[in-house]
């Protein structure tokens, strides 16, 4: 999940009777699965929640390019280098696409990016973990994009039209990334040396729990979920999404011939699901607060790119203004 802990500003849900006529009409539309479009009336809380969620999602795509960039210049052959570059390109495209969806709500891209840079808004906690080996390029594709897809597949049915349509398009590319990532790992496990196999297992050990954290806190610790679910911005709870992810991932893990760093992971016949151990929530909140291994580096890199590009953007504007003047005079 690329959006975690999105604040809705609502302490509790209003009943239909408590709502204004406009709010009631809006809620009935949502309940009837009719998509909300940019020019439709919407409660301010709905608008703000969506801006928060979509901007966080877009920021995650952009910051998420950085751990992969760390290995792009060291990709081992033409095929992998071109694949990884194309994947990073897709992520930039997702970011652009999501920022556009966000702008339909009246938000401004530059302002939202400034909030990211000041630390006021977040991106997914997963990108605060370092990419330390080539195997991480496989694991990130398989587990990180995999977790994102589980969330995004459900978000294709989200109530806001532009966000829902963005998700449909993004899901197609993400599932390609996930297969590509899995294939990187599978190739190393099936054709690799002992060193390469150890590299894969080490990578899974490091990314397993952070990937589980991508779905956010337990439902019981998720005070904003009820309102987001009522507005159908969210369509499935954090714990349900996490369970779905684990259920689909464990058979893939076994097929790789690798293990998860979770001694409590086992199939539960009665539940029809995998049981798994407790997430280290202290670590999760530490990373969210900015204390992950890469928080500072990631933000520094993003800030530096935008700050150092100021004179370039100013030049482009000045040139455009001059051209406009010339054309007007001609």
């Amino acid at each position, binding site marked *: 999940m690329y959006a975690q802990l999105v604040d809705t500003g609502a302490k509790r849900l209003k009943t239909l009777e408590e709502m204004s006529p406009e709010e009631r009409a809006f809620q009935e539309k949502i309940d009837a699965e009719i998509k909300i479009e940019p020019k439709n009336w919407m409660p301010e809380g709905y608008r703000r929640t969506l801006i928060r969620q979509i901007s966080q999602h877009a920021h995650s795509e952009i910051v998420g390019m950085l751990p992969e*960039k760390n290995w792009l210049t060291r990709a081992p052959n033409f095929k992998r280098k071109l694949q990884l570059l194309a994947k*990073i390109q897709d992520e*930039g495209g997702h970011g652009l696409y999501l920022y556009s969806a966000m702008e339909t709500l009246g938000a401004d891209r530059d302002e939202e990016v400034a909030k990211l840079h000041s630390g006021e808004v977040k991106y997914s906690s997963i990108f605060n973990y370092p990419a330390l080996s080539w195997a991480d390029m496989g694991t990130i594709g398989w587990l990180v994009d995999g977790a994102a897809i589980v969330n995004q597949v459900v978000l294709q049915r989200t109530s806001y039209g532009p966000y829902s349509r963005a998700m449909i398009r993004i899901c197609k590319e993400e599932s390609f990334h996930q297969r590509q990532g899995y294939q990187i790992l599978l*190739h190393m496990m099936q054709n690799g*040396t002992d060193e390469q196999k150890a590299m894969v297992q080490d990578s899974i050990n490091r990314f397993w729990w952070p990937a589980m954290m991508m779905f956010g806190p337990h439902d019981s610790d998720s005070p904003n979920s009820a309102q987001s679910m009522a507005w159908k911005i969210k369509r499935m709870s954090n714990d349900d999404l996490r369970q779905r992810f684990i259920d689909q991932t464990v058979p893939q893990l076994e097929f790789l011939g690798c293990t998860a760093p979770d001694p409590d992971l086992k199939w539960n016949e009665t539940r029809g699901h995998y049981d798994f151990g407790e997430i280290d929530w202290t670590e999760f909140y530490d990373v969210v607060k900015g204390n992950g291994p890469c928080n500072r580096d990631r933000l520094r*890199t993003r800030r530096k790119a935008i700050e150092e590009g100021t004179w370039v953007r100013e030049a482009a504007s000045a040139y455009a203004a001059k051209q406009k003047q010339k054309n007007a005079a001609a």
Partner: protein
Amino acid sequence: MTQNQALFEYLLRLGDSDLILGQRLCELVGNAPALEEEMAIGNVALDLIGQARSWMTLAAEVASAAEIEGAGRSADDLAFTRDERAYRNLLIVEQANGNFADTMARQYLFDVWHFHLLSALSGSADERIAAIAAKGLKEVIYHLRRSSAWIKRLGDGTEESHAKMQDAIDEIWTYSGEMFIADEVDSLLADAGIGADLNQLRSLWQADVQALLAEATLNCPSMDEYMQRGSKQGLHTEQLGFLLAEMQFLPRAYPGASW
């Protein structure tokens, strides 16, 4: 020198320049001045590395068929295990990214050359070369349009951008002359109708560059200035070794491993 030996050498030069410039652009991912530029830089890098792969695949085929130096090596071997002294890329492409003006000056001067080169090679007597060149040319037309637009924006933008753009051109200029210095390989293949005539390329390049720099309100240095050279003999600037050390790390650290 046999024609196949010359051809192998020629293909390496083409592939190496594409790959090294593509690698330099990869270094910029996540550092572009705007998200739209992030996409553009990545696109250009993808095109160049894709073209490098085509040239090196052909180089490997030529080497194996003619049983010359390099026989039995794949395109990946050529790219990811060859040493600095065996690399044949132009000195201009290995120069560091610098600021955005430096990056665009390097790109533009290369793009003009690349455009005219691939235009010429599209009519090569060697059909394999003509096919790769024609495919690449479609991409390079876009590269050139983009870098030309940036030279104009930065040259004729603000005072600051003008100064930076002029510095960038002046700084990189000394590496531009090498693109037109023909050696035995060039002459042999140009005579056979396989390679491009570098003298012709020089006048086309000069006319384009002078016109665009004038439009961008920039001063165009003289082509008679002292020009650095050496890449055709594998004599590079000190920058290439570090680039290769990074790019070739995995195949060198884990010899024989398959990825």
